[in-house]
């Protein structure tokens, strides 16, 4: 069985407006040297899929810059390879009520020509911002063995009222019944929908034609729930952990989780499933004679002269002398001068923190400094 993958680059931007004012959700930097799309893109490549379409709507400069030809994921191919699929503006203007802020289904409709030109028999559809290291071959194998038209990925986990999630009901044979928005009334362990589907390509193209004809907008409501009765829709439980960023505090929490060796092991140390990313060729990091670094994750290209504790440093970060950086996330090329103190701060790219500044947030409300700003 052959598969083509479709990744949505930007749908959840509204949840983290701070980090997505000039980028897609998929290109949000994460864990020192990655962007969120690296995880799903690596999963796809690690499963032997060499044909990938990345659907994007707006703010995709950083995404295109990051993905390039796809070479770093071995997706610069004569046959197949990586395709970035921005919207047809004219088509979008006449479609749906939400205009450019499209849904997954609308985005898929705009990729109909890409999908009809494919020769693969299965389409793997996923959000581009899932933080996970999955065995997608196992997922596709389950899809093939059950002969399903659609296979919906779910994750068994405890659900409380905090996050907006979609809960999936299925029968004892693993047949999908319904996906509904979770509401507070009955907390407990549920099958939470992961934005990952395997769909028969011919079936998908038929459904998309129908969706366009009827003006449907929601992948879950209009496609999955509608097909549940008439087609073979099945549920697949993934065993690996799979996270999404739903707010800046959440971004902070998930980033700090990377300091836990077990989390890193689950994500980065899976045999034959490396997480690939764009190679920058940074110089190795320099630790000065009186630097003090504890429990921190550091990318290459940094120069550390001060104290860094419980922090995540992206590429090219400079920490000056007698400066203390605690519980911080410093995005690429952040420059922190001398004698400064930072606690629970997230700096976006190329931020400058001048000598002697004292900045502090709280882990529930990290202090965020926008791109290029000098404080």
């Amino acid at each position, binding site marked *: 069985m052959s598969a083509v993958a479709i990744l949505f680059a930007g749908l959840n931007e509204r949840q983290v407006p701070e980090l997505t004012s000039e980028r897609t959700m998929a290109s949000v930097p994460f*864990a*020192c*040297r990655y962007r969120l799309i690296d995880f799903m893109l690596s999963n796809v490549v690690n499963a032997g899929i060499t044909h990938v379409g990345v659907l994007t709507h707006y703010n995709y400069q950083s995404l295109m810059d990051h993905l390039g030809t796809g*070479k*770093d994921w071995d997706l610069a191919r004569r046959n197949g390879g990586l395709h970035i699929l921005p919207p047809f503006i004219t088509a979008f203007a006449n479609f749906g009520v939400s205009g450019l802020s499209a849904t997954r289904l609308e985005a898929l409709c705009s990729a109909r020509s890409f999908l009809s030109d494919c020769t693969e028999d299965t389409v793997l559809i996923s959000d581009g911002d899932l933080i996970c290291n999955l065995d997608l071959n196992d997922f596709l194998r389950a899809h093939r063995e059950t002969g399903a038209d659609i296979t919906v990925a779910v994750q068994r986990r405890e659900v409380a009222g905090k996050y907006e999630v979609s809960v999936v009901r299925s029968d004892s044979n693993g047949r999908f019944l319904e996906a509904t928005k979770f509401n507070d009334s009955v907390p407990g362990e549920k099958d939470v929908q992961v934005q990952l589907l395997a769909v028969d390509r011919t079936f998908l193209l038929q459904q998309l034609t129908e969706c366009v004809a009827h003006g449907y907008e929601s992948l879950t409501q209009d496609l999955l729930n509608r097909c549940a009765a008439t087609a073979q829709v099945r549920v697949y439980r993934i065993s690996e952990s799979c996270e999404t960023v739903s707010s800046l505090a959440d971004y902070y929490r998930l980033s700090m989780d990377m*300091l836990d*060796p077990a989390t*890193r092991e689950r994500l*980065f*140390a899976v045999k034959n499933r*490396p*997480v*690939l*990313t764009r*190679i920058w*060729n940074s*110089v*190795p*990091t*320099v*630790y*000065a*004679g*009186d*630097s*003090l*670094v*504890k*429990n*921190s*994750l*550091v*990318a*290459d290209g940094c*120069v550390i002269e001060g104290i860094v504790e419980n922090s995540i440093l992206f590429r090219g970060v400079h920490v000056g002398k007698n400066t203390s950086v605690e519980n911080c996330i410093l995005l690429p090329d952040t420059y922190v001068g001398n004698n400064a103190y930072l606690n629970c701060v997230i700096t976006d790219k190329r931020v400058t923190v001048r000598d002697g500044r004292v900045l502090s947030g709280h882990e529930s409300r990290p202090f965020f400094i926008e791109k290029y700003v000098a404080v």
Partner: protein
Amino acid sequence: MAKKKEIVAMLLAGGQGSRLYLLTERIAKPAVTFGGKYHIIDFPLSNCVNSGIDTVGVLTQYQPLALNEYVGNGLPWDLDRTYGGARTLPPYQAMDRSEWYKGTANAVYQNMNFIDKFDPDYVMVLSGDHIYRMDYAEMVEFHKQKGAVCTIAVFDVPLDEASRFGIMETDGDDRVRSFEEKPKVPRSTKASMGIYVFSTDALRRYLLADDADESSEKDFGKNVIPAMLRAGEPLYAFPFRGYWKDVGTIRSLWEANMDLLGENPALSLQDSTWRIYSRSDVRAPQYIGGNAVVRNSVITEGCEIYGQVVNSVLSGGVVVQKNAVVRDSVLFDDVVVGEGTCVDYAVVDGRTVFGDGCRVGAPRETASELTLVGGGLSVPDGTSIPEGCRFGAKELETVLKGGKNA
């Protein structure tokens, strides 16, 4: 594909580098690791691309697998070009001859067909043994201005080291008046850096003559340059000032790595206008543990540090377990230093795993000599590797046998 080029570089990368002992048992010297994520060959290759030279023939011979794989299509150095780019050039069989490269000059001679494809005005000859950053374009400009047939880059060395190099005497105009390969009594301190610019026609002429001369050792320094001088050709010496280090010995390789450290490092790779490029694997970010101590060190991707790292250079994927100490040392890729193990004043080749409680080398203050540990070894718990030792597979076997007897 070929288009006319003003200049083509020929990078001599076939040498064994026998004074690096265990490090070059299975790879050629230019492929030896340096500075955390580099290899020696990254320096001439990056210098080429930074100097605007986009066509580089890499001549390989000794243990070429790692080097061929590393250079590949030249992409990391931006030398993956439609016209030109990086090519590895191994010795080959031909109708009338099939032989190894017999010397530096012969290696270039055998690849005149590669050079001719690009019809260059100049040929640059480089060696893959040195750590330095140099703008070759300045040297080519010098060559043109002087109307030279051959220009040799020279570096001022201390008089007591001069007899290790090719030494030349020059006049006030930098014209070479005499050249002597490894003189017993050096008459100057101007040492050849093994970097030459030749005008192509003259190079072809002299290489043809050299090939016909049966008594020749087919070496640029020993034969071709003296022949040119004897014929009265205009040879010039291009003085180079800056960092330049021949890393032909374990000691000098260690020193060059140490030059990356300190408040004002002798060699800094941070300069973004003259980047040194390398081919690197994707590894997870480096992690420095809660009880780790890292001082005055260069550390790269994939490292996990739980113990102490002081005055050291660590390549990708090195693990230093808790209570372990690494001091004044250079560790290549994926070396694991077990709990409580102490590595002092040593160079350790890739993928060697030290068990717990080992003692490798002696502190720099007291040790008389560097310790060298070969690659891919599994050193059992509690092993003691004495200072100055060259510890390879054979020495490990002895240790293992000893363990059984005890």
